[in-house]
């Protein structure tokens, strides 16, 4: 809030006043010390205050400045007291001097002895009696400002005002030329300066504590203050003006003394009367405002039918009444009021009220309380507000009690209405059952689930309405009532009258419903229909499991049995799978049925009527490729299905209520059918789409199995063919080879055989050898494929073996232009199959020669702990990154097949041999930078030698 101007003036006044007083005193002292002429004339006594007065003024000014703060420090307070004490002391000493009529002036002499002794100006050495009185009062007043307690403040203010009165009289005397007023009673006059200073400082004292009652009364923001501020200047200034003017007129001889007094009385009376009347009107106006505000308050209290409560500072109620109507709450008394509050609320109210009383804070509580006018308990809001006195202590409490019973009732009804709307419109089924499991209340969704109108539910139990589901429901409901523990999210499935014959699924949660006293009075059920989700889940599970069964089984017929079994019982009571055989004849290949004796019956029907009969079911669907279903299988339909009476009798025994048959269609062909039958439930239109989808998935899985099997068969056939072909090739080769060798020997033995013939025989021999190796390679591969690669192990020196192979390949090496360097510290022995290892080394060296581009080839043999390492390195064309990963696979080659021939089997066989030795073969290479093959072998092959079948030599071709 912005400080008022008057407050700022009050705050500044002590500084201004003490500065003014100090200036007056300083001027007087200067006059005394310097003997300034103007100050020492004949009239000097009027102007020149005594030196002691000047000093006392200075001390009083200091005391005022020091006492300005309300909470000064210790030192400051002490200084203020000393200054005030000095002022009082000077006043009292001078008063004593006057009283004792001392001729000399001990204080003045002591203070200004030198100046007095000089005697230059006829100064009035002693302070006047009025001044002494004024200073004595002012000093004591200043000394009391700081003291704690209202009494001291009040005394201080009274003394200060008395001190102000003394110079005021003297100043009036100066103003009106009444010498007596400033000279009397001694013959020393009080100087004008001293009077002014004293007056200023005395009036300062109340302003030092602006919140004192006196100051508040005059300057406070209250009607009284406003009145005081208006009246005080008027009563002070206007009489002064009136009297002053009359006095001047009388002095000038215009009027005589009695006229002056008469006029003075008349004018003062007129003026004061005017002032009184104006003030009276002001007071009336203020009073009117107060009365109107009180009227509004009464009207308010009356309008709200509020009972007003008053309580004393200790919190004890003193009255309960509507102050306007006087209406009281009968029997409500101070000491028994708590009895009117509901017993359960008493403790709470008592605690809260006690806390509010002790802390002096607002109190509010809503409680159940007896209503004397209406009887019984109602809801009541009680509020209490503390009223404080000037010192901030609680003087009394004012409160109100309001009956809110009706308002709360309305709120409750609104809430219930909302709940009711929610209950009715909820998209889940909601039901309340009593302890006897009879429906008390249900909503529309619940009624829709049951397929029975809501009115029918009330008072009936689940077993009356939905007997099929009751065995699932009632035990759970009963358990909730007995244990009080909810059963949450349990699945329920079956039919309701809503859709007869169709199995549906729900999730039901049951919660106990308790009375306010906590006993279980019933059960609340929340029911959510999940039929669609459940069907989708079942179908999904079936198709996934069927696909898994088909993929993992070796035997298609077993898998199809399993497929049929997977459909039961979630999708059907019975399921049959029919497939076309190679000749295009439909056969039942899988059957599962829950019914007792139904599986043999099914197979009996299949035996007597293979693939089903006539125009219905699997034969029809298999022929047309379109699904077919009968929602309700009646006798009429059965007769249509049957080809003869015997057939009809068998079909009857199936006891179908409903069936659904879909094609097994894949890649545009119908492979067979999937047939579901149900004895209890009806299949419906939407089941067809799901089943068709299942049919497609199962068919795709069957198709994949068939394709895979065909591919496997093709591979097996090829391997068998290779094996046979290789064996068949061997026979003519054997004869050919022997013949060639015989011819070579014969030619060599015959003297003078032509060189050309020898050369020719050589080539024939070599090429026959090559052909034999190729055939051996093919045989090796077929052996490996069949899992037959036995090892015949013996001690072998790998270094010697490498040298031997190197020598054998010397011709090719020479033709290629490459050199071979064999690096080995000494013999490296191990237990291996010598001939197989020879095959590996030969293959690696041949490759190095073939792809080495005539650059040096290095072979390193080294020992590495329990293992032996063979590293073959060439600097030839290398192997591209994409070829590396496939390098050791069958028929794969690391080079372009437009540049290099070969079967693509060499490295495959080499790797198989190394693996059989529990070793590993690795390759590092980069296109154009050569290749490094590293074979790591354990020193001993891990298994015993076995009889070794015939086998061939290494082959050419990096593979």
């Amino acid at each position, binding site marked *: 809030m912005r400080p008022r101007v008057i407050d700022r003036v009050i705050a500044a006044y002590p500084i201004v006043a003490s500065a003014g007083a100090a200036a007056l005193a300083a001027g007087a002292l200067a006059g005394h010390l310097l003997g300034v002429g103007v100050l020492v004339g004949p009239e000097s006594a009027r102007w020149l205050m005594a030196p002691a007065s000047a000093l006392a003024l200075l001390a009083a000014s200091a005391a005022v400045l020091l006492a300005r703060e309300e909470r000064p420090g210790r030192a400051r307070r002490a200084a203020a007291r000393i200054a005030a004490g000095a002022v009082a002391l000077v006043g009292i000493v001078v008063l004593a001097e006057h009283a004792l009529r001392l001729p000399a002036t001990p204080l003045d002499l002591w203070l200004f002895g030198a100046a007095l002794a000089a005697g230059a100006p006829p100064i009035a050495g002693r302070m006047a009696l009025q001044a002494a009185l004024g200073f004595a009062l002012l000093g004591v007043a200043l000394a009391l400002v700081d003291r704690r307690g209202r009494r001291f403040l009040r005394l201080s203010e009274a003394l200060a005002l008395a001190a102000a009165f003394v110079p005021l009289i003297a100043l009036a005397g100066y103003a009106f030329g009444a010498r007596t007023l400033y000279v009397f009673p001694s013959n020393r006059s009080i100087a004008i300066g001293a009077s002014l200073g004293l007056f200023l400082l005395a009036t300062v004292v109340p302003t030092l504590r602006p919140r004192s009652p006196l100051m508040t009364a005059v300057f406070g923001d209250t009607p009284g203050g406003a009145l005081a501020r208006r009246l005080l200047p008027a009563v002070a200034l206007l009489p002064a003006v009136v009297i002053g003017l009359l006095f001047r007129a009388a002095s000038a001889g215009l009027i005589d003394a009695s006229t002056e007094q008469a006029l003075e009385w008349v004018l003062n009376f007129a003026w004061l009367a005017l002032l009184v009347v104006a003030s009276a009107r002001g007071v009336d106006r203020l009073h009117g405002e107060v009365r109107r505000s009180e009227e509004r308050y009464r009207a308010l209290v009356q309008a709200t039918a509020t009972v007003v409560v008053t309580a004393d500072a200790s919190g004890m109620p003193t009255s309960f009444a509507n102050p306007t109507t006087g209406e009281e709450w009968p029997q409500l008394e101070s000491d028994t009021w708590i009895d009117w509050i509901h017993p359960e609320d008493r403790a709470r109210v008592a605690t809260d009220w006690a806390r509010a009383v002790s802390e002096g804070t607002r109190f509010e509580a809503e409680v159940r309380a007896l209503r004397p006018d209406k009887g019984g308990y109602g809801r009541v809001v009680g509020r209490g507000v503390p009223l404080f006195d000037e010192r901030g202590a609680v003087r009394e409490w004012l409160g109100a009690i309001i009956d809110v019973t009706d308002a709360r009732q309305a709120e409750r009804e609104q809430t219930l209405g909302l709940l009711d709307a929610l209950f009715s419109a909820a998209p889940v089924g909601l039901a309340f059952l009593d302890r006897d499991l009879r429906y008390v209340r249900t909503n529309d969704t619940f009624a829709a689930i049951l397929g029975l109108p809501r009115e029918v539910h009330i008072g009936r139990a689940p077993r009356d309405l939905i007997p099929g589901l009751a065995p699932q429901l009632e035990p759970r409901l009963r358990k909730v009532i007995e244990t009080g523990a909810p059963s949450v999210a349990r699945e329920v499935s079956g039919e309701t009258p809503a859709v007869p014959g169709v199995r549906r699924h729900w999730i039901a949660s049951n919660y106990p419903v308790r009375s306010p006293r906590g006993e279980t009075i019933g059960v609340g059920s929340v029911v959510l229909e999940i039929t669609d989700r459940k069907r989708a889940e079942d179908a999904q599970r079936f198709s996934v499991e069927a696909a898994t069964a088909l993929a993992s089984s070796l035997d298609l017929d077993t898998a199809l049995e399993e497929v049929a079994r997977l459909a039961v019982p979630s999708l059907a009571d019975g399921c049959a799978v029919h497939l076309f055989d190679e000749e295009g004849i439909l056969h039942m290949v899988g059957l599962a049925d829950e019914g007792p004796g139904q599986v043999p019956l099914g197979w009996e029907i299949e035996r007597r009527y293979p693939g089903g009969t006539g125009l219905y079911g699997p034969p029809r669907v298999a022929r047309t490729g379109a699904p077919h279903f009968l929602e309700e299988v009646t006798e009429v339909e059965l007769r249509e299905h049957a080809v003869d009476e015997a057939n009809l009798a068998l079909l009857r025994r199936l006891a179908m209520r409903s069936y659904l048959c879909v094609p097994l269609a894949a890649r545009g062909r119908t492979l067979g059918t999937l047939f579901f039958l149900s004895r209890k439930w009806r299949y419906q239109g939407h089941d067809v789409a799901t089943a068709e989808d299942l049919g497609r998935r199962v068919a795709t899985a069957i198709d994949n199995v068939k394709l895979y099997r065909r591919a496997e068969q093709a591979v097996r056939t090829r391997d068998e063919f290779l094996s046979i072909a290789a064996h068949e090739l061997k026979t003519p080769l054997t004869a050919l080879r022997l013949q060639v060798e015989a011819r070579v020997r014969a030619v060599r033995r015959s003297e003078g055989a032509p060189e050309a013939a020898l*050369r020719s025989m050589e*080539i024939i021999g070599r090429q026959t050898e090559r052909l034999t190796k190729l055939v051996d390679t093919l045989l090796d591969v077929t052996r490996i494929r069949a899992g037959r690669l036995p090892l015949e192990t013996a001690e072998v020196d790998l270094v010697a073996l490498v040298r031997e192979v190197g020598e054998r390949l010397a011709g090719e090496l020479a033709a290629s232009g490459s050199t071979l360097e064999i690096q080995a510290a000494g013999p490296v022995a191990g237990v291996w199959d010598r001939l197989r290892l020879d095959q590996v080394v030969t293959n690696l060296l041949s490759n190095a020669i073939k792809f080495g581009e005539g650059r040096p080839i290095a072979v390193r043999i080294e020992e590495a702990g329990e293992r032996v390492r063979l590293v073959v390195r060439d600097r030839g064309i290398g192997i591209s990154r994409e070829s590396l990963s496939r390098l050791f696979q069958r028929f794969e080659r690391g080079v372009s097949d437009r*540049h290099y021939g070969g079967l693509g089997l060499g490295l495959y066989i080499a790797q198989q041999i190394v693996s059989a030795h529990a070793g590993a073969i690795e390759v590092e290479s980069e296109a154009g930078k050569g290749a490094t093959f590293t074979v790591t072998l354990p020193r001993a092959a891990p298994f015993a030698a076995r009889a070794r079948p015939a086998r061939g030599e290494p082959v050419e071709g990096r593979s």
Partner: protein
Amino acid sequence: VKGAEVLLVEDDADVRETITMLLEAEGFSVAAVVDGAAALARLRAPGEKPCVILLDLMMPRMNGWEFRAAQAADPALAAIPVVLLSASAQMDLLAADFAAAETLRKPVPLATLCAVVERYCGRRAP
């Protein structure tokens, strides 16, 4: 200028030697090289151009396809007839692909080989 020499391009040493031997025995003059690169080098060397080139397909360094492409791109060599020698089962397809004068499927009967070479080079020595 049509020369009298048969140029044989074949990487397998034994095949190379055998065909050379047989053709020489039949009176043809034969130059044998190991691959397409060697063949090009020989063709571009000064001297008579061969009357026919017997070309194997699968060879290291420069194979038959690459050689044929290089030959066709060289006006001085493009006119020399080329006879393919291959073990491939699809010789007809290859011939069309290759624009070769003739194709001979390995193993080639000697009589056929001689007849083909004779057609391009004429009968030489007895």
